[in-house]
């Protein structure tokens, strides 16, 4: 009896001793790769050339260290045709075994049972899925128990990119992370120079980089709530944020969509890079390009805080690795995904720069920041922006109407926020289940 208790106690102590240092010890992997049980053949799709190279390198390591004899046919299907091809292949019953998934598209594949539930594997592999930020994995959870169907590859957040030369020319101090919407509006006014054809700001374009960040700062979930029950654009927080931006536009501090040449965040970025606007909202994915190509002095700063809530919130998006529900090799596919999400697999992304790795290990995150080399740019601002962030709740069927059409109506055709939002919500409500 006593011996038994002692034995139990010993086991508990041993377990604690084994479990605790995982958090504490430096150098211990946050997500550990494991050897595969049986090698085999897999097909895998990605949409980005650069990713294919990085992922290809990590697959090589997986094959040599964890799964000798395995074969992976890695294919790039460019973004422009990726989702059409995925659907036509799904129709033919030929989804790739492993493929990249984007949060707005996940719902469709989940509701149609086309993607494999990875939760049993996370349990088997001993991976605690709460190590990833909730904005990264939340949209990939499915079912009553919130099973995790994907491993996040990366995160990307939004900050304000600003042209330091323009601030200097006007004798303005550079903004800091504790600035508010009011400060932002004052800067936008001061930096606008119609004579020189220069605008103060362009911060509304696109779902991820644009107006939804401002809505999120008010505490509202932008566009549609996570449960897909309600179009939130006509809620007070959304109206406040959109009217704030519309005010800046009406005063001539922000360019119209047509003047920028399009509704995408890239259009705003190019407009900024060509010296026509002082401040834009931009994603971490533009860092490499900005460091290489922008001809003036610039920096980034976290989004300004909402004056009442005191929150600065970035929309965060994580691409995921998913497996097909009909793969002939589910164990192998899960093992590959585990490796790609592990510290070892994610190192390749961290070192490659550009794409911020989803793996939360501080060592990996620092590796990513360091990969940009010597620079004055405050890259840490992007990492800071992950803390109070908002995951993607919108989905493909409503993409155009909220991503571009709403923006064009307000910031090009001059429609009032209330009217534009009412029309947009009508269309969105049609698509809500």
């Amino acid at each position, binding site marked *: 009896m006593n011996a038994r208790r002692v034995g139990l106690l010993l086991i508990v102590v041993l377990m604690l001793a084994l479990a605790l240092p995982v958090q504490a010890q430096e150098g211990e992997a946050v997500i550990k790769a494991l050897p595969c049980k049986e090698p085999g053949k897999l097909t895998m799709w990605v949409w980005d050339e650069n990713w294919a190279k990085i992922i290809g390198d990590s697959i090589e390591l997986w094959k040599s260290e964890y799964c000798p004899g395995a074969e992976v046919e890695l294919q790039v299907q460019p973004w422009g045709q990726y989702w059409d091809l995925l659907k036509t292949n799904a129709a033919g019953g030929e989804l790739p075994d492993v493929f990249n998934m984007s949060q707005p598209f996940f719902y*469709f594949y989940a509701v149609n049972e086309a993607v494999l539930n990875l939760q049993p594997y996370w349990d088997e592999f001993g991976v605690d899925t709460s190590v990833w930020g909730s904005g990264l994995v939340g949209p990939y959870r499915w079912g009553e128990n919130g099973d995790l169907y994907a491993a996040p590859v990366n995160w990307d957040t939004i900050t304000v990119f600003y042209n330091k030369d323009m601030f200097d020319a006007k004798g303005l101090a550079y903004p800091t992370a504790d600035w508010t919407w009011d400060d932002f509006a004052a800067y936008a006014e001061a930096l606008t120079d119609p004579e020189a054809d220069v605008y103060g700001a362009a911060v509304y374009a696109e779902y991820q980089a644009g107006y939804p960040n401002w809505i999120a700062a008010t505490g509202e979930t932008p566009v549609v709530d996570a449960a897909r029950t309600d179009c939130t654009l006509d809620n007070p927080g959304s109206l406040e944020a959109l009217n704030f931006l519309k005010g800046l536009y009406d005063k001539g501090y922000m360019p119209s969509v*047509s003047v920028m*040449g399009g*509704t995408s965040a890239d259009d705003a970025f190019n407009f900024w890079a060509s010296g026509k606007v002082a401040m834009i909202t931009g994603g971490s994915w533009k860092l490499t390009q900005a460091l290489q190509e922008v001809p003036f002095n610039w920096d980034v700063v976290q989004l300004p805080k909402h004056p009442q809530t005191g929150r600065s919130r970035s929309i965060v998006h994580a691409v995921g690795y998913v497996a097909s529900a009909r793969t002939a090799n589910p164990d192998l596919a899960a093992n590959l995904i585990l490796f790609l999400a592990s510290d070892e697999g994610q190192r390749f992304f961290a070192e490659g720069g550009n794409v911020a790795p989803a793996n939360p290990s501080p060592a990996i995150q620092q590796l990513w920041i360091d990969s940009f080399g010597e620079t004055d740019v405050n890259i840490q601002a992007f990492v800071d922006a992950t803390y109070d962030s908002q995951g993607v709740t919108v989905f493909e069927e409503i993409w155009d109407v909220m991503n*571009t*059409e709403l923006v*064009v109506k307000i910031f090009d055709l001059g429609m009032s926020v209330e009217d534009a939002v009412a029309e947009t919500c009508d269309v969105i409500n049609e698509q809500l289940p």
Partner: protein
Amino acid sequence: MSTLRPTTTHWRVWLARPLEWLGPTPLSRRKALWGLALIAPNTLGLFFFFGIPVLMAFSTSLQEWNAIRPARFIGLDNFERLIQDDRFAQALTNTFKLIGLAVPLEVGLALGVAVLLNLPLRGRNLLRTAYFLPVVTSTVAASVVWTSIFQPRYGILSQILKPLGLGDTNWLVDPGLVLIPVAVVTIWQRLGFDMVIFLAGLQAIPAELYEAARIDGAGRWGRFRHVTLPMLSPTTFLVVVLAIINGFQIFDQVYVMTLRTVPGGVGGSATTLAYYLYRRAFTNSEFGYASAIALVLFTLILLVTVFQLAIQRYWVYYEAESQS
């Protein structure tokens, strides 16, 4: 008609002598075989990659199918839904507007250019080639270039229109204007094709007709009006039919030119039938519904073409008829 060749061969005989049906003599059979062999790759390709999908569209249009779940038979529900679908009605209207806008201009301009380039001009071949170049250009590439031309403020067109105060016109965004750029690209790209057909038609008109008209005192306009136009009417008929069919299928221009602003136009203002079909299939994953739209499109083209065939005898003049 022909009595040399036995026409009553029973199918059992064909089966027994499988090549009999190809021709009466070994030589003609061999020739026919060659002919069949040569058209086989194209015909088979057309059958497998065009014919079969077209046939499948008929059955898919009666189903609810999102490409992942098994399809479900729902009878005529898709077609019932079409009748009540405002966006479908809008796409239909837009398509007719585009045809109304583009086809008369396209055919008229092509005829004008063909007549001019049929004159003994210096550098005529170079000009003909130049006019034909857009036909062999990819529509996507052309649309990208035209998109930048139509861009407000910085586009070439805006620079030209600036003195008129139209420099900031939102050609590709304004719901009332967006069909104009789409029509312009369509016209620009089809012009050369129509022109070549017209040129062939023009060159087939016997010179003696013009001489006779001249002797009768017809001027330049008179000869055009009373010789060229009637003699060219079969060609015009062909060009108009093809232009309208092409008009029903406008897709690439809309896809590319509205991609960077609002895909399909603000409130669907640039959405054509073909584009709407694509969006239903690939954005909303409603492949059954999209197939129903495809069938409607097919039927429309068929009806319009049959209608044109029916009314052609009122305006199309065939030389052969008049001689008999």
